[in-house]
């Protein structure tokens, strides 16, 4: 099949561009483990408050500088409401929903995941600079969605 010369050049350029994009994304995923949060475990959404560790949501210290934070998203709040960690802390968040679909996002940190009833979401972040970070629900969940927020304080 004959293809116009200009078109061939244009398609070659586009092909190289997309191949570079794919290589970058794939390298970041394989080498640095930069992958979207996926398939941690399932949970019965009607029994979240009886299921450990979500029966007692909150921050757990694993070792120096290493923390795990367990969150329950419920219309229209997060539990816990506030956690406090030292600067440099690496925090792994585990979140689940006790009712509808929610979001879990700390803007400008790369902490961002959907929270789906029936599943536990997990995402990790190192908080290097002190400050108060806003944690918000970023998936519409009902009439009070715009008020659904919590805080991460880094000291």
């Amino acid at each position: 099949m004959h293809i116009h010369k200009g078109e061939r050049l244009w398609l070659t350029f586009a092909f190289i561009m997309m191949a570079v994009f794919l290589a970058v994304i794939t390298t970041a995923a394989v080498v640095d483990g930069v992958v979207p949060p996926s398939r941690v475990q399932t949970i019965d959404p009607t029994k979240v408050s009886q299921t450990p560790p979500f029966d007692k949501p909150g921050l757990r210290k694993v070792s120096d500088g290493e923390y795990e934070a367990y969150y329950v998203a419920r219309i229209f709040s997060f539990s816990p409401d506030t956690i406090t960690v030292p600067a440099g802390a690496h925090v792994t968040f585990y979140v689940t929903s006790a009712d509808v679909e929610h979001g879990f996002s700390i803007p400008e940190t790369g902490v961002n995941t959907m929270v789906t009833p029936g599943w536990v979401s997990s995402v990790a972040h190192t908080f290097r600079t002190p400050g108060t970070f806003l944690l918000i629900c970023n998936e519409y969940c009902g009439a009070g969605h715009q008020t659904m927020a919590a805080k991460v304080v880094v000291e």
Partner: protein
Amino acid sequence: MAVTVNRDELVSRASGDLLALTHIYTATLVLGLGGLFGMLQGFSRANLIVMPDWFDYYRMLTAHGVLMALVFTTFFICGFFTWSTYQSIERTRSVTVGWIGYCVMLLGTAMATVAILSGDASVMYTFYAPMKASPLFYFGATFLVAGTWFTAFDVLENVVWFKRRNPGERIPLPAFLAATTFIMWIIATIGVVIEMLFLIPWSLGWTPGIDVELSRMLLWYFGHPLVYFWIMAAYAIWYTLVPARFGGHIFSDALTRTTFIILLLLSTPVGLHHQFLDPGVSSGWKWMHTVATYGVVFPSIMTAFAVFASFEIAARRAGKRGFFGTIAFLPWKDPVFAGPALGMILFIFGGFGGIVNSSYSMDILVHNTMWIVGHFHVTVGGPVALTFIGATYALIPKLSGRKLFAPQLALVQVYLWFVGMMIMSTAMHWAGLLGSPRRTSDVSYFGAQGAATWHPEMLWAALGGALIATSVLLFIIVATGTYLRNERAAVPPSFEFAPVDADAMPTPAILDKLGRFAVIALVLAILAYAGPVTQELQAHPYLAPGMRTW
């Protein structure tokens, strides 16, 4: 050709024209309502107004999304492809199936709209379970989709009739583009119809719960090809009708068909790129869908080449050279050209933003932020809407034989839309990069520090939204003015398919084997989804009960 047209064919053509025109006018009025809601949202998010309880923000946002993304586009596309099929296949035909489709779509739209406006379905156009809307909403959405199947059947039946009558001949290009789009659409809508088979009994209280992750997969199996349903109709106009506005040609018949075949094959197996942050989908399948999405970039890149080539070739034949020569040659004062052309400029931003969104880990930065809202306003709200509006300015006079009312207003309208959309979508993209969430009535978060940078962007977005809403108003004035004024055009208004360029290569016969490509498209869709759906069914026996949280 004209000498062979008999009376039956004339009657048949007039009834086909009326069918298409009714679709186009319906789309126009829906755009007017959706545009009003859009503007109120912009003002509301910028804290300039507060919506009353009896017509709250989320109800209005759901109405805006459903009316614009699902209703306006679908009515226009069904009307347009019905017209382009009828126009390119000469035949004495019945339009009964087309009318049944229209009525079923209209009934579905009415049901869903009543459910939304009464406040019983503030669930957004994505209607994520386990938020449970009234059954009326799910029935309405199902009828809207079912109505399109009648239109699809009508278009495909005409193409099959043509093939039987003319063995060895190529399917006329406009009918080919319509048929390819509807085959893609039928494969895509299977997903949402299966989802409805879960949602409807559940909303009626017959089943106790819903597998949320599965319902999300079924939605996005449909949700991304929905985007291509819009895009393919816009591309069909760019390829076949826009060049005729400046005496140009279709760059290549073969390239146009190839583009649509790739869109047919790759529109569906990419939906998981809307679910990169879903906890229930494995990272391997997410990566696979990234690769497939990168593949579906190519037909758009080919379209950009072919459409701009058709501009340049026509300019050269008129003795104009170079970039500025081509720009000066094009008919920027014709709204039928300027609408789609301005849309193409917006789509440069829409296309590149789309690559970011579909890039696996990069999506983490923008997922569910205003960036996404900015993105789809320079895709469906830019190239798609401006192309449909531009085409409407030609189709209404052509189909009704009326003179277009206030053509200067029409010209102002498309430029105003372009400027408004540039301002609004730039502000939205930027707000998204700053972390501002979408689908939120208020971004102040009680004055929280992290939210301080978002409000100024919302003011810019409200300004852009006001310009677009003014533009929508002008569009409604021109469209309804044309109808009410009822002034017969002295010369029959033209909206003709451009001829194929004489230098273009011949079209290989294989490209017309639509049945074969349909089977491949279906196989690809199954391959892309069998894995993640099986994983979900194996992993996850928990069902979520429905609830009303608004």
